[in-house]
Structures are given as structure tokens and as C-alpha cells.
């Protein structure tokens, strides 16, 4: 609950005190942020020492490969949260992203199995993904529906269309592109891992290295100020939803290559995607969503699952530990932000 934020009348004599307080709080926030990162590091160190084969190149590349799908999806979600603001009930969120990936995967695999070539199938998957994103954008920006609700409705549409297309079955797929993604490698790093590396580099460069990305943060952080500064808020917000759809399409191609098929049940990824995008904020100095932070938390989630596997801990623990970590990180974060309006 933000209480003191509503007190504008701080006396002049209090100014010094307030400055000291805010410096103290900043220091506290730094300690907390380092603490959270140290907790992550401690878990990693534990795995390094006790989990056999954890640090082997083979294993680490395996983790990066496994993280590729979650990572690409989490970038889409992060973009939506950046552009829509991070208030979870009213701000930007794309609940349809995982279902959209399932639909794109179904379209891609079905077209391949019908004998169409890679180029057409990939283009179709991307078109479908971006069309679903555009539908979200229309609902949120054009009609003014709350993102949480609009994307919930679109989730149902996308999931239902996937089911009608595949009749809830596994659609096997193979093609030169899939073959390349599965078995290709360059400099000893597999193609799937490269996909995540390249995609990450592009996304980080665009969002954190260009004026466009900065404007996106402005739109999400303070829409009125952004509008007053002459930015087209609807354009930027729409862009994030379409980008999210594009990410879903890219992830769908990765998932089809990993499983050599499109399989039902991709919607289950949604919660992990949300967790990755939200957990990533702890890696930023002002606790805002960033692409780099998202990447780190995606890798962290991947390493966590992998470490447990190597230690022969039941995989049933992974979700619980992930949940506990989210709570820990967020509790610490809100403590560090104190009363600075972290509701």
C-alpha cells in the first residue's frame, strides 16, 4: 500500500532528512538487489559443486537449447509489459502468447505434413502469430478492453483453433529447416542455442540500444507524458502485441523442431513465461522489466530444472521452488522499494 507517496507537503527543514532517507533507501535497494542475485549465485554454486556434470559444455548448451523456447516467448511478454506498464491488472499483459505459439506450431506442422515447403509454412506461421497479435492490439488499443481480459478471450480463440486444426493429436513434421535446427551446429554450438543467442542479441539491441526502445519505456511508464511529448501511444502499444505474436510464431518453429512435431498442451507454458518476465525485473536497477533481466531469469529457471535433474531430485519440486523464488524475490523487492508506491 502506498501511503507516504500521497504526502506532497514535506517541509523544507525535512529536505535534508528526506535526502538522507532516500540515499539510505537506495543503498538498501542495492543491498537487496545484490542479495537476490547472490541467492541466485549461491544456488548455482551449489549445483556446480554437487551436481555431477553441471558445468560440462554439453550440459550448459543443453540448458540454453531448452531455454530457447521459453526465452523467445518471455521476450514477447516483456515487450508487452514494457509498453503497457507493469500494473498487472490494468497494465500490459499477453495471456494468449503460449496458446498463440501452439496455434502457430499446429499451422506450421500441418502445412509441412500437407507437403508445402519450408518457406511457405514458416511465412504462414508468422502471419498467423502476428495476426493473433494484431487481434490483441485491436482489442486493447482500438476497443479499449483491459489487456488481461482481451488476451484472455483471444487465448480461448487461439487454443480452440489449435484443437480444431489438430483434433488434439500430435502432428509430426520434418523439413530441411527443422533438420538444420535439430542437428546443425556452428562453432560447436547447436542451431537451437544459436537461435536464442541471435534472437536475444536483436531484441536487446532494439529495446535497449535504440531511441525506439526508449520511447517504448516512456509510453509504458507514463502514457500521458509520452502523449504530451508527441509520441503515438496507440502505435507503440499495438507494436508490442504484434511483436508478442511474432515471438510466439518464432517460438513455435523452435518447439516443432525440438519435438519433431506440434503437440497439444503448449498453453501450460504461460505461467512460466509470466514468471520469467516478472522475475527478470530483479536484475534491473529500478526494478523495471528489461530484456537482459528476462534472459537471465529464463536461464536461471532452465538451470534450476537442469540442476535438480542432475541431482536426481524429483522434477515435481521444480514448480514449487520456482514459485517460492518468485515470492522471495518479489517480497524482497517490495521491501526494498519501501513505500515508494509498490502496490
Amino acid at each position, binding site marked *: 500500500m*502506498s501511503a507516504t507517496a500521497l504526502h506532497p507537503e514535506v517541509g523544507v527543514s525535512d529536505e535534508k532528512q528526506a535526502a538522507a532517507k532516500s540515499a539510505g533507501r537506495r543503498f538498501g535497494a542495492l543491498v537487496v538487489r545484490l542479495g537476490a542475485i547472490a541467492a541466485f549465485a549461491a544456488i548455482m554454486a551449489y549445483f556446480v559443486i554437487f551436481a555431477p556434470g553441471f558445468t560440462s559444455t554439453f550440459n550448459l548448451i543443453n540448458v540454453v537449447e531448452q531455454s530457447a523456447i521459453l526465452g523467445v516467448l518471455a521476450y514477447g511478454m516483456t515487450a508487452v509489459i514494457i509498453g503497457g506498464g507493469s500494473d498487472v491488472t490494468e497494465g500490459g499483459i499477453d495471456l494468449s502468447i503460449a496458446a498463440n505459439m501452439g496455434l502457430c506450431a499446429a499451422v506450421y506442422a500441418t502445412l509441412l505434413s500437407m507437403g508445402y515447403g519450408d518457406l511457405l509454412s514458416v511465412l504462414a506461421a508468422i502471419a498467423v502469430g502476428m495476426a493473433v497479435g494484431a487481434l490483441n492490439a485491436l482489442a486493447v488499443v482500438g476497443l479499449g478492453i483491459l489487456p488481461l481480459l482481451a488476451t484472455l*478471450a483471444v487465448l480461448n*480463440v487461439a487454443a*480452440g483453433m489449435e484443437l480444431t486444426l489438430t483434433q488434439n493429436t500430435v502432428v509430426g513434421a520434418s523439413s530441411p529447416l527443422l533438420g538444420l535446427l535439430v542437428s546443425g551446429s556452428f562453432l560447436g554450438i547447436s542451431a537451437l542455442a544459436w537461435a536464442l543467442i541471435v534472437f536475444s542479441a536483436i531484441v536487446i539491441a532494439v529495446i535497449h540500444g535504440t531511441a525506439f526502445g526508449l520511447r517504448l519505456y516512456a509510453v509504458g511508464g507514463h502514457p500521458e507524458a509520452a502523449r504530451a511529448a508527441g509520441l503515438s501511444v496507440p502505435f507503440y502499444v499495438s507494436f508490442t502485441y504484434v511483436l508478442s505474436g511474432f515471438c510466439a510464431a518464432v517460438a513455435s518453429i523452435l518447439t516443432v523442431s525440438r519435438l519433431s512435431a506440434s503437440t497439444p498442451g503448449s498453453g501450460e507454458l504461460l505461467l512460466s513465461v509470466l514468471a520469467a518476465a516478472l522475475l527478470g525485473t530483479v536484475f534491473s536497477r529500478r526494478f523495471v522489466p528489461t530484456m537482459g533481466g528476462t534472459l537471465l531469469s529464463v536461464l536461471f529457471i532452465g538451470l534450476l530444472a537442469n540442476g535438480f535433474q542432475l541431482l536426481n531430485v524429483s522434477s515435481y519440486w521444480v514448480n514449487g521452488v520456482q514459485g517460492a523464488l*518468485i515470492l522471495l524475490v*518479489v517480497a524482497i523487492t517490495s521491501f526494498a522499494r519501501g513505500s515508494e508506491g509498490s*502496490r
Partner: protein
Amino acid sequence: MSVSANDNSTKVSVRGFLAKYSVLIAFAAIVVFFAVASPTFLTPANLFNVLVNNVVMLAIVALGLTIVISSGGIDLSVGVSVDVASMVFVMLLAGGYSGVAGVAGGLGAALIVGILNAILITRLNISPFLATLGVLFIGQSTQQLATSGGQPIYLTSGYASDQFNAIARTALFGVPTPVIVLIVLAIAVHVLLHRSVFGRYVQAMGAQPGVAWYSGIRVPRELSMVHVLCALLAGVTGILLSATVKSYVPLSGNAFLLDAIGATFIGTTLSRERKPSVVGTLLGVLLLAIVKNGLLLVGWNFYWQQVGIGVLVFLVLAASFGLRRAAH
């Protein structure tokens, strides 16, 4: 605001009317459509089936979410409350305990989930979305660990089955017990939310959290109550679910989450300020249930139902939000 040009205001009020009643209009249109398209739709037997199988359990979960969403929060862990109540209830019956002990144990388990949410949100200052997301993950792990990876527990005969039947297969004055439970709970939540001091506090916290705090409302206490009530209501659904299907299937409660959120928010389109209400939520649940049932009767398979529901919810939201935006 009300002093606008005359010719303009009539047009605006027509739009406002359409926006306000878009759910009711959609509801009526859908009932008429299915009544014409399928001869069995309007038969008492079918409507009874819809009520018992599609409405009751979802509605009780949605009542809980209505309270939480009124307070400005959200509870993503309702599925966990449904599941743990179901799990403890079935496990106690399997262990030979009485039905009363089973129900008490199940509700107790849901209560624990509610208290956990309340502590995370009010003591540790975690936003409701993230707190309940964390609890959802933990709840899923807990169930998997408790059931060696998600093995269902079936109790289809013998002592436990009789206890289940006592809940799900009995009736009072011809009304099945689960329906009576829903009616009682709906009236109770309506009174609590719209006719009591607690309800005023909840609405105030949802509208203006800062002002609620300054007005002397004990926000942490009321908010804890909100989350405990929501978890308990979801727990009731868990018990009804187990009693109906005579089993506990791990991780099945999550299926209610998105539908219940959808129903509650469809209900909010009834009010100008988009406030959730018990009547609106029940209407939302009915709308979803009737569409599911109607699409089945006119021969759409299960997969197309989901598309149909998504499109319908989308159109209702678009009508309500879009028309209201145009009216301003």
C-alpha cells in the same frame, strides 16, 4: 457532464444503454438462437443438466473471485484451493473418516491457501497477482509430491461413495443439494458485498486504496478476509467436484480459473464503473454455460466450443467497452 446538447445526448444515451445491457442483449439473443437451432435446448431436462453440471461449481469459484476483484486484487490460486480441498476431502474419506470430518478437512486445507495468500499480500506487500501466482506454482508442486506425480484417487464404491452421494446426489424439495449450496452462497456473498459494512470497505479498497487507508479502514485485515473467503468458496467447489466425480484428479482445479475470471469481468460490464457484482458474475457464468451447452447441442464438437466461447466473450467485451468509449 449531463448538460450536453439535446440531440447529442439522446444518441449518447442509446449507445450507453446498449453498452450497459450488451451482456443481457447477447444473453437473450443466444438463448433465442439455440432455442430455434436445437429442439432439445429449452427442455427442462437440458436446462437442469446445464445448471447442475456447468453452472454450480464454476459459479461458486467465480463468487470468490468477485469478492477479490472488487477489492482491486486477483487470485490466480483458486485452482489450488479447489484441488487441495478435493485432495484432503478424498484422502480423509479413503482413510475411513466421516463425511463431516472430510468436508471440514477439505475446507481447512483451502483455508490454509487463503491464509497463505493473505500473509503474502498484506504482510509481505507482494502484489496479489504475483503472490497468488507463486502460491499456484507451490500448490502444483505440493499436489504432485503428495500423489507421486499426479496419480488420481478414485473412490467409486463402498463407504466413501455413499458419503459422496449424500452430498451430490441428494435433493431438498426436488432441488439438488449442490444447487441449494450455490443459492445460499450467492445470497450470502451478495449481502456481504453489496449490503454490509465489510462490502463497503471492499469496494472502497478496490476504487481508491490510498483513500481507503486514510479513511481508517484496516486495509490489511479486510484484505486478508477477502482472500480467505475466496479460498474457502473455491474449497466448496473442490468438495462438490470430488463428490460429483467420486475422485480426486490432481491439478484439475486450474480449469476453473480462466472461465471464472472471464465470467466475473463479463459481469462488470453491467455497471457503469465496471464494478464486479454477484448478479453480473452469475449472469457471466450462465452465459458461458449456455454457450458451451448450446454449441454441443447444435453439433459443434468440444474443440469448436472453445473457439465459440472465445469469440463470444471477445464480442461481448468489444461491445461493452467499445460502445462505452464511443458514448464518452
